[in-house]
Every structure is written in C-alpha cells, then in structure tokens.
C-alpha cells in the first residue's frame, strides 16, 4: 500500500521552477531515499509534504486521500535547517516542541524521559541549550522529531554535522524505526547510507524524477557486466585468456589468493565465466560488481545536465 502518492506536482518561485511536474510514490513501511544534487528541489518537495509550502499544481495523496495539515501532525520531520531556542532549558524546549506536535504535557514528559535514558543524556535535562555542543543539540533535535511516535518520518540531511559515532547512533535509530514499521523518507547526500538503509530511491534533478525504484533494481539496471573472482594461488594464471568471454581490468594478490576484476563481453553470462574458471582453477569466490549509488548518482546527473 502506498502511503504517499505525488502526482505532477509543480512549484514555482517567481520565474524559477523548483518542481516541474514531479511524480513519485512511497510504499508504506519503506525507507525511501530522496536523492539529488543541491537545488534539485528535494527540500521544496519535503516542505510541500509537510504543508509548509503549498504546491502550485498537482495532487498529493496521503494514504489515499488528499494531504491535509492534520496528516502532518502524524509526520516526524527533521529539517535540514534545524535549530533550538538557545536560552531555554533542554527539558522546557523538548516539552514545548513535543506539545506542538500534539502530545499532552504528561505524555511529552514520559516519552522524552524514555528517549533521554536511551541516549544516556538524562543529565542534560535541566541544562540550557546554549551550553550544549552541536552534536548534543542534534540528539535533542532527533528526539523531538520522533517523540510523538510518528509512523511517517522525513529526515532532511540527518547526518550533516554529526561525528561518526553520533552518525552511527542515528543510523541505528533509523533502522530501528524501520523495523517497527515506520515509513521513512531520507534526503541525503551520503550515498553509503542510502545503500545501507534505503529500500527505494528517487533521484531528482531540475525538479523532475530522473531515476526511481528499489535500490537493488536501480543498481542492477546500471550493471556493467563486471565480476570479481578470487582464485587460489598467489600468481596470476599464465597463458592467454579468451577475449570473446572477458578481459581482466585489474588483479592483485592477497596472501595465497589472487583477485581479478573481470569485464565480461555483452553476450557472456555469469555461468559461462564461472564455467571457464572452474575447469582451470580453484575458485574461492565469485561476485557480480554492481555500481555504487554514488557512481549512479554522478553519472546520471552529469548525463542529464549535459543534455539539458
């Protein structure tokens, strides 16, 4: 079932067209990577989803009905530009933001206490926000995003400004939310985390969807028929290799193993390659090399910009 369906959404800022008939949909319970270069329209799209902006055209369905501000209360949104009131104490601030998200004071306090214990930051409860480091403030911001237990979350560049430890903590929390069945839209430039966390992605550029689908599907779509094979022995096997089957792009040895990167010819399948090696060498492993999201991102955007 689709939780969000966006159809032909248009948003203009003066002469500039931020979203140019964009359509995409997000499955319930899916972790969705919203990718694109700076200025592609990601934040604009998110602000339309959170009803901060109104679209100039197109429709947005939330669980099958047109999106209303009441639905937004069920969304947890962590904006890219996120700040806190410097002069308030952490608890006052968190309670205030939780109440704005619709919790009663008592619920806000009990939920927040749970999260503070989980993040081991109980001792900050009465500290002023201005005393906290940036990383600490980010934790608070994450907590107030999820404090009302939303089943639909939007994170805009959640990893920016996090140190590796906190970024890892955040990643684990996102995965935990995912396991609990929440739908998550993740807008990020961190492609490694996209491969790790996301089920589906949409790559947008110039206000349109450039590429859409499951992470593995997309990577398969961009496969280049390359494989790695690990053979026993510390030297490259002597002799000629059949050019009609493959060519060796690179090779190196690790201990008593030799690892080859192969470019198969268009007609050659994985089995044919394996068949060739298995009769001549001891094959320890054999893998297809799929392009990384990073490579796909760069090549797709560059190709489109060139054609534009």
């Amino acid at each position, binding site marked *: 079932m689709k939780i969000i369906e966006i159809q032909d959404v248009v948003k203009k800022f003066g002469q500039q067209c931020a979203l140019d008939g964009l359509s995409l949909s997000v499955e319930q319970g899916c972790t969705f990577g919203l990718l694109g270069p700076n200025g592609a329209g990601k934040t604009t799209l998110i602000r339309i989803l959170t009803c901060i902006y109104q679209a100039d055209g197109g429709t947005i369905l939330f669980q099958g009905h047109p999106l209303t501000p009441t639905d937004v209360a069920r969304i947890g949104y962590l*904006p890219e*530009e996120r700040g806190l009131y*410097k002069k308030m104490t952490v608890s006052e601030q968190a309670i205030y933001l939780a109440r704005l998200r619709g919790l009663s004071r008592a619920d806000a306090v009990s939920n927040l206490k749970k999260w503070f214990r989980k993040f081991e930051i109980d001792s900050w409860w009465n500290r002023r926000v201005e005393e906290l480091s940036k990383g600490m403030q980010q934790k608070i911001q994450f907590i107030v995003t999820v404090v009302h237990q939303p089943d639909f979350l939007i994170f805009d560049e959640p990893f920016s400004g996090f140190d590796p430890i906190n970024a890892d903590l955040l990643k684990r929390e996102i995965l935990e939310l995912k396991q609990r069945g929440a739908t998550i839209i993740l807008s990020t430039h961190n492609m490694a985390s996209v491969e790790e966390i996301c089920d589906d992605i949409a790559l947008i550029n110039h206000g349109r969807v450039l590429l859409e689908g499951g992470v593995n599907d997309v990577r398969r779509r961009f496969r280049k028929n390359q494989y790695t094979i690990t053979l026993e022995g510390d030297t490259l096997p002597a002799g000629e290799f059949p050019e009609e089957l493959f060519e060796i792009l690179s090779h190196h040895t690790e201990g008593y193993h030799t690892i080859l990167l192969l470019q198969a010819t268009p007609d050659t399948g994985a089995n044919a390659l394996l068949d060739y090696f298995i009769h001549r060498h001891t094959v320890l492993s054999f893998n297809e090399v799929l392009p990384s999201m990073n490579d796909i991102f760069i090549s797709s955007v560059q190709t489109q910009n060139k054609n534009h």
Partner: protein
Amino acid sequence: MNKIWVIITREYLVRVKKKSFIITTFLMPLLMVAMIMLPVYLANKAEKECTVYVLDENDYFIHRFHNTSKIKFEYPSGELETLKKRCVNGECDAVLHILAGNQSNHANLFFYSDPPLSLKGGISDQMDEIMFDHSLQKEFQIDIEKYKMLKTTSHSDIQTVQIDEEGQGTNRMMELNRVVGMLCGLIIYMFVFMYANIVMRSTIEEKSNRIMEVIVSSVKPFQFMMGKIVGVALAGITQFVLQVAFVLILLVGVGMALPAMVPEMASATGDVASAEVVGTAQSDIFSNISAFYSFPFSTIVICFFLYFLLGYLIYASLFAGIGSTVDNETDSNQFVLPVSLPLILSLMVIVTGISPQSTLVRWLSLIPFTSPIAMLYRLPSRVPAWELGLSLLLLAATFVLCVWLSAKIYRVGLLNYGKKVTWKDLGKWITGKW
C-alpha cells in the same frame, strides 16, 4: 487551538521570567516617580537657609525685607569691605550692597561660596515689592496696609464647566483634559512600540536560530504568529498592570511621606518661587477635586485598553511580518521606519500641545494607524459617540487587514534566507506570485 495555547504560554512565560522584564517592571515606575518627586524635593529640601547681610547706602531698605524659610536678612553696621570679609569668613552667605542716590534700584550681591540659584530671584522680588509699595505711597498717597488687604481679598475664582447637549454642566479642568490625554497617548506609544519590537526581534531570532522550520512543520505559520503576538501582548499587559500598581503604591507612599519631607509646602504662603508654584498647583488640584471626580474615567479606561490592544495588534502583526522577511535586525530598518511613521507623527502632534479639538487631531483620531494615540489625546475633551465608534471600527478592520497581510508575508518570509527582500518582493508574496 490547543497548540496556539501552548505557544501563547511559552511566549508569555519566557518574557515574564526574563530578568530584564522584572527589572524594567519595577525600575521604570521608580524612575518615573523619582523624576516627578526629585525636583520638588530638591527645590524645597536641598536649599538651606541663607543669611544675607544688607548694606543700603540710602538706609531705605533697612528692616523692610522680611525673612522667609530660605533667606534670613540681617542688617549689621560696618563698611562694605568688613562685611565682605565676614562673608569670606563664613558668617553670612552673601552681602547685598544697594547703591546710593538715584541708583537705589541697583545692587551688588557679593558671595564667596555659591549660594542657591533662587537666592537672587528671592531678593530681587522683595526689592521690587518694596520699591513698588514705596512708589504707591509716594506718588499716589496710597495707604499700603489697606492696599495689601484689598489685594488679597480681590481674588477671582474661575470654575471651568463643560456643558453637554442639554446644557448640563460638569466641573472640568481644561488642563486636566490635556494632560490626561497626552499621558494616555504617550503610554500607548511607548508600549505599542516596545512590544511590537519585541515581536519583531523574537521573530528574527527564531529565523536566525533556524528553529522556525521545526516549528512551522508542527503548527501553521499563522497560528505561530498569532500565538506569539498574543503571548507578548499578555506579557505587556502584565507589565503595565504591575507598573500602574507599583506607581500607585509609590505615590501613596510618597504622598504620606511628603509633608514630613517638605514641611513648608503645607504652609506655603507667598514664599520663594518654587515652593509657591508647588503650593498653588497643589491647592489648585485640591480645590478642583470635584472636577477630578467628574472626569470620565470609565470611558477613558475602557477606550485606553481598546486602543492599546488594537494599536498593539496592528503594529505587532506588521512588525512580525517585517521580522519574518529579514535575517538580522539591521536589515529591518528599511521596513520599520515607513511602517512606524504614522505612530511617530501622532506622537509629535500631541507633544506640541495642539488643541485636541483641532481638525488635524480629529482626522488623526479617525485614521487607524494614528488613532490609538490621537483618539486618546482627544478623548478627555468631547468626542461624539459616532466618531469614537467609527474610529474603533476602522481600527478593528485595519487590524484584520494587517494580520491578513502579515500572515501572507510571514509564511513566505519565514524560510527565506540570504536574499535581501525588497518592497517589490513583498508585493509578490502578498499577491501570491512568488
């Protein structure tokens, strides 16, 4: 609705808990009362009694000066030089040397350490009087004692009575009308400006803090703007009420302490200038006490709060709109000045003391952006009910319009960073073509 309440509560508590709020709440009235009381106190208390040696070459003025609480006249015999020396030695504060012959209206006042400023005036007043009496007697053969008696008994007493349509009169003080009007106008000006500015500054702060997007993803920008405006208004009203109460307490306290502080004031009878002014002003107020009580206080208090509130709401919403368009306070000036111009204009008009019944004030009291100040200035004098109603109606309509306009600007401005906004941009935002 519930969320607006959460916002109002926060905005209110944050302001009321601030140290600066508590300080200004109690310091301002203290300063105000001090400013009123200090000159009175100083004029009466700080000036010690001065001893003046009189040396009259004609011997005419000898024993004709009368001693007051401020000046004691003595007539020692001796040369001017010896008297001067005695002055240097501190035996007296000044030596008054009245010249001889046809220069008898000329005098030198010698002093060693600075005497009070009022000393010269005090002496010269008495000299004038003595010379005048002398002339009366000499030129017109008038009996001075009789003349003085006549002078005190022929005293006019004008009661100012303001009449209504049926000619029914109420005791009124014309000056009181003006002063109360001016005071109300001033207070409204101060509070509207101060609190509208607070709304603007806090909006700018939320923008530069980058907390704005976190908030407007949970509440509508309009809710947030209104919550802030109302929260700040409540803080303002709290401060105002506290200040009024504090001023009253202070005044009552000072009023009780005053007779002890300034004993002369109670028995002020033609003394030195300052005491006399205070004395007569006081007796004037007390003699017009009936005028004071017949003053239309309830109307003024009700209207004061209505105009205070509506005026604040108009300017606060405009200032919130302005705050949302800029990244820092300095950029806000280009919008703040034109918007606050009407307020400044109306303040200038009332401070110049132009008649509340003039055509200018009448128009200003109808125009929504100036009426909160101008109408309050006019109100203690007569204002036809329909004009008051029209003015309030226009003001309320303007409030709705301003909130609508500002909300349009606000929701776009909030997340607009970096680019400096022009008037043209604002037009586009309002018409929705951005």
